[in-house]
């Protein structure tokens, strides 16, 4: 008999229960708009007069330091690995009865949506590890619809211009950009950090790094500093946080992490914007617990938004008879997502305490399928009155705040107060295919978001993987208050073929 050993799940099935696109964002960018990552608070850091990016000097310095460290550690490292994913893809948008202009968020198709979108991306990963030093670099190269963006911007400007002087401006801009390359590629530094680990129980990391934590499949209230996940694509890699962290492991089942971090926008901030946090994880047999806290920089009465309010959180995972029960809860000093102003003015920062919580259960069937069910209470979501105020503002058009700031407050799956998620992963081992069915219901918003997908391994090497992903927003009540109703594109199918190297 062998010395028994653990073997992970099937090829490409990084999660035991769900299909995985290798960290790429496979959703329709218009149905989920920039995602939950920007979502909870429109992605904005504390916004007061002194909290802005100052200059490119800091950026240059930061980049230089990272690159220098990369070269040094990479050269000296005993072990260096390089890999990545090249993934050409295409999105097929399905227009509604009135084209793409049905949503108040995209009246007259401000966004310039079209039926077909190319969505090509390259993810590059470089890791190096020496005796005690290490570095991690993750770069995402993604196609960006430059022409659509500029043309849409011109359309907005033309619509806002009451003098008529800009008539024809949008068409001219469109001509200019569409005759050239309609797409540009943007480089996103997802992670870039170096570190020192003088022993197994101490690790110090400097640079952009991941703080992903929690047990929830779709949402993680206990994750206080990391960008929020998109519940329809929870395995997508998220951009890290610029921070200095110290991780200590004083005992086998105890881990403590301290960190100081910068807001996720820009490369510079004032001292008062600096944040500090901690996370403690400890486990017992069949149970694990987390405690987390964040001091999110100074809070002033004249702040008009705050992406990092002070917060405390706790989470647990308990295994009972093979079923995993988990929960997370967080209390914030104020909401990361502003409320709409009933009078149509600028959105309003809501002061707390604000509670958000999640409970869920997961089970893995012996034949392979895995099921997770969750309920998420989103304390930062809007109640009925706020939903009405929001739609009223949107229907006011550009002059009424229907675009710009208010558009950024549309945060699908972080929009209302209550959400229920069910996720079923079904592997078909004989064909090296994984099906994933994800459904989210928002009873108070009246929306159902369905996102089934399939991943198929195409070759013997396991390097080529095709994926098809459907994203559907359904409304129960045909109400403008429904977050599905507001989706600029309600139905879309995306296809891609990824090459892993």
């Amino acid at each position, binding site marked *: *008999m*062998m*010395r*028994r*050993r*653990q*073997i*992970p*799940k*099937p*090829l490409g099935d*990084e*999660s*035991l229960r769900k299909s*995985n696109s*290798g*960290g790429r964002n496979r959703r329709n960018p218009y149905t989920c708009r920039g995602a939950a990552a920007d979502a909870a608070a429109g992605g904005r850091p504390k916004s007061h007069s002194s909290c802005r990016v100052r200059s490119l000097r800091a950026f240059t310095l930061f980049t230089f330091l990272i690159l220098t460290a990369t070269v040094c550690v990479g050269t000296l490292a005993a072990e260096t690995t390089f*890999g990545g994913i090249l993934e050409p893809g295409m999105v097929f948008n399905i227009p509604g009865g009135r084209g793409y202009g049905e949503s108040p968020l995209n009246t007259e198709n401000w966004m310039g949506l079209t039926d077909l979108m190319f969505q090509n991306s390259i993810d590059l990963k470089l890791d190096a*590890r020496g005796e005690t030093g*290490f570095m*991690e670099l993750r770069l995402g190269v993604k196609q960006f619809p430059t022409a659509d963006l500029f043309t849409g911007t011109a359309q907005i400007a033309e619509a806002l211009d009451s003098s008529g002087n800009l008539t024809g401006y949008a068409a001219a801009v469109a001509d200019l950009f569409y005759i050239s390359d309609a797409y540009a590629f943007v480089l996103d530094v997802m992670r870039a950090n170096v570190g020192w*680990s003088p022993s*197994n129980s101490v*690790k110090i990391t400097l640079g952009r790094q*991941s703080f992903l*934590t929690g*047990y929830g499949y779709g949402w993680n209230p206990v994750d206080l500093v990391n960008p929020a996940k998109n519940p329809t694509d929870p395995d997508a*890699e998220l951009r890290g946080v610029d921070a200095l962290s110290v*991780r200590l*492991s004083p005992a*086998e089942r105890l*881990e403590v992490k301290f960190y100081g971090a910068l807001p996720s926008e820009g490369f510079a901030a004032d001292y008062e914007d600096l944040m500090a946090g901690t996370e403690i*994880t400890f*486990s017992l*047999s069949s149970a*694990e617990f987390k405690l987390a806290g964040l001091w999110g920089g100074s809070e002033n009465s004249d702040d008009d938004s705050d992406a990092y309010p002070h917060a405390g959180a706790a989470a647990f*995972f308990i*295994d009972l008879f*093979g*079923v*995993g029960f988990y929960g997370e809860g967080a209390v914030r000093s104020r909401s990361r997502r502003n409320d709409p102003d009933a009078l149509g003015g600028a959105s309003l920062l809501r002061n707390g305490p604000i509670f958000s919580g999640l409970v869920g259960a*997961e089970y*893995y*069937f*012996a*034949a*392979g399928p*895995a099921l997770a069910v969750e309920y998420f209470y989103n304390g930062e979501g809007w109640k009925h009155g706020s939903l009405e105020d929001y739609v009223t503002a949107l229907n006011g058009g550009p002059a009424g705040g229907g675009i710009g700031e208010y558009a950024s407050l549309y945060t699908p799956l972080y929009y209302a107060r209550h959400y229920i998620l069910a996720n079923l992963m079904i*592997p078909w*081992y*004989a064909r*090296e295919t994984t099906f994933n069915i994800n459904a989210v219901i928002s009873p108070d918003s009246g929306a159902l978001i369905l996102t089934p997908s399939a991943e198929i*391994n195409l*070759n*013997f*090497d*396991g*390097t080529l*993987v095709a994926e098809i992903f459907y994203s559907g927003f359904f409304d129960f009540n045909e109400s403008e208050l429904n977050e599905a109703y507001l989706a600029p594109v309600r139905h879309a199918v995306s296809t891609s073929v990824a090459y*892993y190297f």
Partner: protein
Amino acid sequence: MTERKILKRTLMTAAVFFFFNALLPAQTEVSADAVLKKADRIFELDNVYSRSTLSVIRSGRAQAPQEMESFESDAADGSARSLTVFRAPARVRGTAYLTVGDDLWIRFASTGRIRKLSSSAKKNSAAGSDFSYADMGDGSKTYSDQYNAVLDGSDRLDGADCRRLVLTPKADNRDLYEKLVVWITEETSLYVKIEYWENGAAIKTMLLEDYRPVGGIEYPFRITMRSLARDSESIIETETLEFGSSKVEEGLFTTAYLEDIR
């Protein structure tokens, strides 16, 4: 000899016969346990490092081989610990599983996230293969720890005389199979075949081959699991195996180390 003496002798003979006859089943059970314990010595190895390849063949079609690096060690309290890291193919490189006792954690390669999983995951197919985590997992728990054994006969397999034992769980444990039938060589006390039973039927068979001496113990470098319910088999071929390995460090079996895996 009087009738009385004859009767007395007869009664004594009968008593002796019944006495030894009564002992016979107990002797058989002890013998089965001894056979099982001897074969189980392979579990007693500690600080094991290995590199191996898992190949799955379904309906005659081979799937991408998966390369794994594994570390195993028992904790001070005796609980089993193991860490398995996927090295290839690229798609799963960096995926890792950590078990400490009955607890299981996973590292997602795409995001680097570390998450605890429910124990039902152990019954899942491991790596899409015909092995389950229960087949692979429980580390230092031996069959003789978990099952009662009864000798069921003997067979000749691959030219070797083997004892056939039937194993049934000692306690009601959902992670254990309803029944195992194992074949152990009479001469060398090595497992050569294990049949797994659920719901009254054999569901899969494990074959253990290519025994090689490592650290004073014979170890199977090729293990095949064949499904009896579908046209599928999975093969683990060990390329490197070290007992008492210096590569197995205490700090490996922590969630903190999972974060450091690349």
